[in-house]
């Protein structure tokens, strides 16, 4: 069952000195947060009023139906982000060894980037990157052709 498992490097015993820096770092972070909170609690002046207790001070009054209807392009953004972000992994793995992969590697990664570019162009031209009210109106106008 262990035909391909190579020998792992032997683990050294855990030394206190190795973790000292990490410990100091965590300590400083906690200390800083505590100091900031305490100072603002002690030095800040308090006013209590209706306006102060609203969820969004100086913001929109939260007095409407929570189920607002509105265009949500976020899911599109998320999908595009995932698509193009994952592709970067492949490009990065080429970039690590670009000098040794030579022109053949360069050609392959160029083809890969070209494929990405085609995808981007397609998104762009089909209007997937147009957000906002003007795009929504445009879409409604073309509704007869799905």
């Amino acid at each position: 069952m262990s035909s391909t498992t190579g020998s792992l490097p032997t683990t050294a015993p855990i030394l206190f000195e190795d973790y000292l820096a990490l410990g100091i770092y965590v300590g400083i972070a906690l200390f800083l947060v505590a100091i900031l909170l305490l100072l603002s609690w002690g030095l800040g002046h308090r006013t209590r009023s209706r306006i102060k207790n609203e969820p969004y001070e100086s913001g929109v009054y939260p007095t409407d139906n929570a189920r607002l209807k509105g265009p949500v392009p976020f899911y599109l953004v998320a999908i595009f982000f995932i698509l193009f972000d994952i592709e970067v992994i492949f490009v990065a793995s080429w970039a690590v060894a670009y000098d040794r992969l030579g022109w053949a590697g360069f050609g392959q990664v160029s083809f890969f980037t070209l494929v990405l570019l085609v995808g981007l162009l397609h998104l762009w031209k089909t209007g997937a990157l147009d957000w906002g009210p003007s795009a929504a109106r445009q879409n409604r106008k073309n509704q007869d052709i799905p």
Partner: protein
Amino acid sequence: MDNNLVQIALQNVNMWAIMPSLILICFGMGLLLINVFLPRGTTKHAVWISLIGLVVTGLFVFKGWGDPQYGFNDAVALDNFAAFFNITFLVAAGLTILMSDEYLRREGYPVSEYYPLVLFTTAGAMWMASGTDMMTIFLGLEVMSVGLYVLAGFFRNQVRSNEAGLKYFLLGAFSTGFLLYGIALIYGVTGSTRLTEIGIYLNAHTSLLGNPMTLAGLVLIAIGFLFKIAVVPFHMWTPDVYEGAPTPITAFMSAGPKAAAFASFLRIMEYCFFSLKPEWTAMLWVLAVLTMVVGNVIAITQTNIKRMLAYSSIAHAGYALVGMVAANEIGYSGILFYMLAYAFMNIGAFAVLVLAGKKGEDNLTLEGFSGFGYKRPFLGVAMTIFLFSLMGLPPTAGFAGKFYIFAGAVKAGYLWLAVIGVLNSAVSLYYYLRVMVYMYFRDPLEDYAWVSMPVSVVVSIVIAIAGSLYLGIVPGFVMELAKLAVF
């Protein structure tokens, strides 16, 4: 990284091993780019370009016959086996594209993105057929399936199409999970994803053959593919998806992806698990019988022709599984032959259904075909030929295919399996003949004035007739090719 490793990795790439699918992908991408610069609703160019792409790819496949190419450190093999299946996929995709434009236009979806999706799906199927590494096969399966999910739900304003897309997606994702789990277990046992290495390792370590992990991996991998092939305990998605999807896509799904799943399944079973042959043939024996019986018996009660063809496609998967149980040269090459024959006859039958429908309503009930054969003689004769072929009557492709498969089973000693198969074919006569009874022995209720005869669909029907008859009358040549293609 070691310099030598890099050199080895690059030297073993060998683009010729994936050239056919690469051409298809390039055509698909080019088509996507052209589409966005043309006004929406223009699709004629897409039909032509994808057909040209399919023909060019076909020429490459023909050129590569008998000259196997191995690439990517033996993760891909473009051998005769892959080439034969590639031709099947190309035939299925070509016939589908020919009948699609008319149908999409009639249903109000003249969307040119459809055609690149079909091309990508075909390319995925090609990777499945030529994959000699679990990962390549999985990659091909995903490329193929993702395209099909979109295509099944392509009519996005129709509830039934949406249902088909969602059902196919959920169950497909589920079955992919099974497959991956099986691959992981087998990797855990043998330490490799390369098919030949797994086979050699299992053969050398016979103590592993009875190991529960090996057996679980084998069964899980089999389940993953049996889902795609729609074999009986895993067939539940088939009728709903086939009924809801656009008719040309149903035709394509029943021929192309099914053949692709058979290709990878055959390769994995033969390369990896040849040491476990008695075990998996016993398993498939039961499944083949179940599939044939359930598919045929439920098809009898269907009144919707599309649904009836869905159940009949389950039954046909059962016939093809008989070839796998036989596990000899005739059985395997019989499967290859049968898949090609099935592509011709089934897609042809669906093409007739495409023409018989009106906008918005598909006219798929049996009553809807009353007297159809007299009012529309050409379509009636075409449908008759396809149904004869699906029944397995000579001189059609279905007869030759079933003959080879059952001959393989008899030669391997599975006499009873062949008897059950033939009995099932007799059962299937009932529901196929019923369509013909309605077409020819009932008075026409309508004059079928809405049925137009666009050139593209007629061409696809004629090609399908030619294929069904050629494979039935002179099956020898193609069967010889199929024999050269198996391992």
